[in-house]
């Protein structure tokens, strides 16, 4: 049953400062809404619990892609289409382009934002595995200033984030230092467009011959939040890729995975396929 739109308040303060002042004055009362690709679905199906919303969709202060020295900074209001059109992101962070391209469909990519994708905090979201592999940092903003933390510490649990009620996600930053890294990403879902992943894995690795000098792995739908696979990384770094290393990587990933059964898949399938994706990545590094 669709919600009655008349029961919901929506305002569009003219500036970011005005939004921050309002959420500082009444913390927790207002929910920010950007492209609406999540909250409007909840409205349409009668599940939208929040009654007071603040539009941040028009705030160009949150919509930017800046290359500064060794880092790329992406404003939280940047759409997936903006990301796909960015030559800088394509060059330095190709996994992010790939994950943006399979987020929803073109119409959703024109509206949906990177910040919304992260703040909605679904464990199955498409961009987090790439951000985790790239070691992203997030900057949060409030009326009293900004703070930056590793993106790996942003998700605290299922749909729980480190955002305080008076804060917004301001930007996501990633280093531009992966030119020498081999990069891999794969989403397993029912189809390319629109489908929410059953499991997804992103990985980057720096190779010295057949030896893994550095490896970073991020996964979706492997736990109650997007996760960096640090046990698998630890089992693999410094090792020559051979059958024993692949077995060790798979075992470590299985040990740290905490998938669930839900309408899209089963825990057993997710764990098995995650191990297979890791193996596929590792074998690709030998080519």
């Amino acid at each position, binding site marked *: 049953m669709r919600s009655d739109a008349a029961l919901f308040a929506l305002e569009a303060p003219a500036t970011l400062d005005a939004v921050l002042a309002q959420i500082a004055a009444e913390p927790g009362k207002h929910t920010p809404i950007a492209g609406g690709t999540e909250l409007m679905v909840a409205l349409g199906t009668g599940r939208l619990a929040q009654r007071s919303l603040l539009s941040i*969709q028009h705030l160009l202060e949150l919509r930017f892609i800046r290359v500064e020295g060794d880092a790329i900074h992406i404003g939280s209001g940047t759409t997936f289409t903006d990301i796909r059109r960015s030559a800088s992101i394509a060059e330095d962070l190709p996994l992010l382009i790939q994950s943006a391209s399979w987020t929803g469909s*073109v119409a959703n990519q024109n509206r949906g934002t990177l910040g919304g994708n992260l703040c909605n905090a679904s464990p199955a979201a498409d961009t987090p595995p790439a951000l985790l592999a790239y070691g992203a940092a997030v900057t949060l903003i409030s009326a009293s200033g900004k703070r930056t933390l590793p993106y790996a510490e942003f998700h605290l649990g299922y749909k729980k984030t480190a955002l305080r009620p008076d804060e917004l996600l301001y930007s996501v930053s990633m280093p531009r230092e992966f030119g020498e890294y081999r990069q891999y990403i794969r989403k397993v879902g029912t189809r390319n467009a629109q489908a929410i992943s059953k499991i997804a894995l992103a990985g980057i690795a720096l190779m010295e011959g057949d030896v893994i000098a550095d490896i970073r792995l991020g996964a979706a739908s492997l736990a109650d939040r997007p996760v960096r696979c640090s046990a698998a990384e630890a089992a693999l770094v410094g090792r020559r890729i051979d059958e024993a290393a692949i077995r060790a990587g798979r075992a470590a990933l299985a040990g740290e995975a905490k998938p669930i059964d839900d309408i899209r898949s089963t825990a057993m399938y997710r764990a098995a396929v995650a191990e297979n994706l890791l193996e596929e990545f590792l074998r690709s590094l030998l080519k």
Partner: protein
Amino acid sequence: MSNVSLTVNGNKQTVDVPPMKRLLDVLREDLHLTGTKEGCGEGECGACAVLLNGELVNSCLVPALQANGAKLCTIEGVSTEGRLHPIQQCFLEKGGAQCGICTPGMILATHHLLDKYPNPTMEQIQEGLAGNLCRCTGYMRIFEAVQEAAAGGTH
């Protein structure tokens, strides 16, 4: 209630609506432009797709207030002077429409696609229309219609 001003198919309109009212409902109920269809109401099917400032969007996911000041193109604005747009003509001639519910969204998604890629590959066509579901045609005739439109219509 909020005053929302829109330029729809070239006509300036102002409506007084709840700010969270879906743009889809503003179009259908307040402006009586019922060519835009509701399919899933969840942004999955593309039946409600319109062009908002030139970008393809699902109007079921746009709160009215966020469309304030925007230029919209709906299926009613695609044809000119009583003549079908070449995309519409190609859908008609290639059998790209059957029951018709998905067709307005398909036409606007095709419009958006051909703006970006005047000579799209089959892969670009499939990706550009991946957010528009059709339960009748099996898609092949739609893809043929898009290819025909890209090739310059059926003149």
